[in-house]
């Protein structure tokens, strides 16, 4: 046990001796360069998030962006709700107008069209005649004559 205690004491003493050795100090010049590099990296990230192209846009586009950021984004939920209502109204309107067109297509024609149709029907009836035959027969073709009849005709000429 005495040896263990001595050994333990020696270990502690050895550790103390090691701990007493001062580590080297960080060079003074590193502070400025490291912090500047860190700041530059942070600034580069900010520049990438806000590209200069936006700042060079035409005035109208900038105004639109400004309106967007100041008017729309702060109340975007309300604007989205309003837009949904308007879209619903438009869809409903379109669907109702399609139905009305279909209804119009099935109504009776105007009176003028009806009279013209009736006149056509009368004309058709007159053309068909009293028998009611709808088709006009072609002129009757004479039946071919026999040779003896044709010979008699030739001999008389």
């Amino acid at each position: 046990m005495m040896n263990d205690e001595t050994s333990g004491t020696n270990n502690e003493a050895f550790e103390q001796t090691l701990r007493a050795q001062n580590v080297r100090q960080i060079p003074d010049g590193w502070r400025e360069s490291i912090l500047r590099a860190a700041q530059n990296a942070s600034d580069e990230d900010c520049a990438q998030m806000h590209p200069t192209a936006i700042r060079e846009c035409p005035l109208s586009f900038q105004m639109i962006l400004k309106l967007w950021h100041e008017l729309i984004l702060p109340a975007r939920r309300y604007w989205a709700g309003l837009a949904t209502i308007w879209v619903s109204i438009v869809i409903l309107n379109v669907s109702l107008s399609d139905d009305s067109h279909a209804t119009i297509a099935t109504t009776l024609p105007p009176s003028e069209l009806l009279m013209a149709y009736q006149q056509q029907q009368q004309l058709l009836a007159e053309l068909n005649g009293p028998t009611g035959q709808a088709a006009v027969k072609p002129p009757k073709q004479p039946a071919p004559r026999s040779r003896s009849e044709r010979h008699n005709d030739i001999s008389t000429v």
Partner: protein
Amino acid sequence: MPSELERLYDEHAQALFAFLLNFTRDESDTRDVLQEIFIKLARQPDLLTSARDERPFLLRLAHNAAIDLMRRRGTRAKHHEQFGAEQLAAFAPTDDPDEAAFRTELATALCDLPADQRAVVHLKLWSGLTFEEIATTLEIPLNTAASRYRYGLDKLRTRLRPLYEEIKKAE
């Protein structure tokens, strides 16, 4: 009024520098990793918000970044481990010649330790972390942290015994 980044640098950069210099055994690598850490802090200001204690959290960042760097360096790092460590001054200069000799030998002995033992020894002796904090920082089990420290300290004691006994005699 200093910025948050400046405050972090003033409070923790020295500890990070000492750890990284001991771990990487290369001053330029140490600077690269230190800069990488502060760039990360500048880009993600909320990084430390969830950390219970800033120092162990930053040391963990440093450790992981150093490992990544050493993996990227690959074979060149191994050669530097073998041949470049003698020139590295990991400890502050001193006017006492015995102490100077001891510090030089200590730096060389630390270089001969495996990187994982060297990291634990440094965090225990010179960063003042507990074994629990070391385990959290290096993301290893508590028993592993303790055993690595014990093995590393034994090797240092064996290597430095002659010089250590001379220093004790002189005192």
